[in-house]
């Protein structure tokens, strides 16, 4: 198919504007190109961005979509110029809880408490409020306890494309 414009340049323009991860499917539709063509163009563009030390940006696959971010080396001048709201690190208690949910989702509060040996109420509340976890259902048993799972924001917080990209996946998935 004849193209009216330079696909690579168009892809760069689209990704540049993305305020949140854009799905590949959406890009294919906007550019009217095949999945193969997108992959090919994306690969070439990503290589240019990510591998060239003269480039300050990188293209990443996060939460099932593509997004451009600044490379970590330039955090200092960025903070100086824009004073961006610093993203808060998650506390140890919350992060332990979050890790357990991430690997074992969907999971009940009782199970989390059993693993950590402490009450999880506060940590769950904090994580919910931060939008890192969500209710994903109810267990069909006495009391129909809530089942928790992670959100897209969780993936974005750690820069993961999906749950399978969690570090050390064999480790925590199964209990024993």
């Amino acid at each position: 198919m004849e193209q009216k414009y330079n696909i690579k340049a168009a892809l760069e323009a689209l990704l540049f504007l993305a305020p949140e991860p854009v799905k590949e499917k959406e890009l294919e539709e906007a550019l009217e190109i095949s999945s193969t063509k997108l992959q090919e163009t994306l690969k070439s563009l990503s290589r240019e961005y990510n591998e060239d030390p003269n480039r300050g940006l990188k293209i990443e696959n996060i939460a099932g979509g593509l997004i451009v971010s600044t490379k970590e080396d330039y955090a200092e001048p960025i903070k100086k110029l824009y004073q961006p709201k610093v993203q808060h690190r998650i506390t140890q208690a919350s992060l332990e809880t979050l890790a357990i949910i991430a690997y074992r989702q969907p999971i009940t509060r009782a199970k989390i408490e059993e693993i950590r040996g402490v009450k999880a109420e506060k940590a769950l509340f904090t994580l919910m409020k931060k939008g890192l976890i969500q209710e994903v259902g109810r267990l069909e048993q006495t009391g129909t306890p809530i089942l928790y799972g992670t959100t897209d924001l969780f993936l974005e917080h750690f820069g993961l494309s999906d749950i399978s990209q969690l570090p050390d996946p064999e480790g925590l998935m199964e209990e024993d």
Partner: protein
Amino acid sequence: MSYQVRLDSFEGPMDLLFHLIEENQLDINEISLHKVAQQYLEYIEKMQEMDLDIASEFIVLAAELLQLKARALLPGHRKRKKGPPPEPDLVKRLLYYGKVRRTVKKLRTLEGQRIKMFQRGPDSLIHVLETIEEEQSPPQDPLKGIELKELLKAYENSRLKAQISRRKKTEEKQEVYDFGEEISTVDEKMEEIMQVCSKESGNFSFKKLIDNCKNHQEKIVAFLALLELVKNSKIKIRQSKNHNILIRKGEV
């Protein structure tokens, strides 16, 4: 001692137990638990001395540790079954908790990288869309939200307006534009212009030609005649310094 500093900073009994095993450089197994059980109890005592609010979970784990020790002291405990004895539940839980801690460390590293990376906000996207909107190109569906009945209504509206404006126009026509057949044809006008050209020795102005016309229609006829004459090189047109358009006879 370090434990005095850290007493209230343990995330829970598992965290404390894990810390003790690490501090003693032990692997996680039943023997190690026997070894650190005493230290664990000492910590609990210290916490009591310091009037720290000890969560019930710490006590529960202490009880578990004591139970484990007591079982090991029972005669025949090790000989009762063939093969290695099954791992106590606490060991399994501690092993898993160890994995959680290792994973948390890795997640911390990822988080550390992430908070140094920044993404664009939605502001400029909205601005770009607005600019494009103003400047060019059709959106996918420019009629978004418009139903057929609205189109029909719009047509009926415009028809209504049309009737009103037609009535007004007819009235105007009768009043003003009552000049009928008296206007000259383009050919007649061409002849007239050529006559003026011959009479006026030099140039004559376009303004004068137009001003002499009785109405719009005659002005149009005059203009068309002029164009025709220029086309046939019968006259020449130029613009003077003060922007007057001057007409004179062509050099034929």
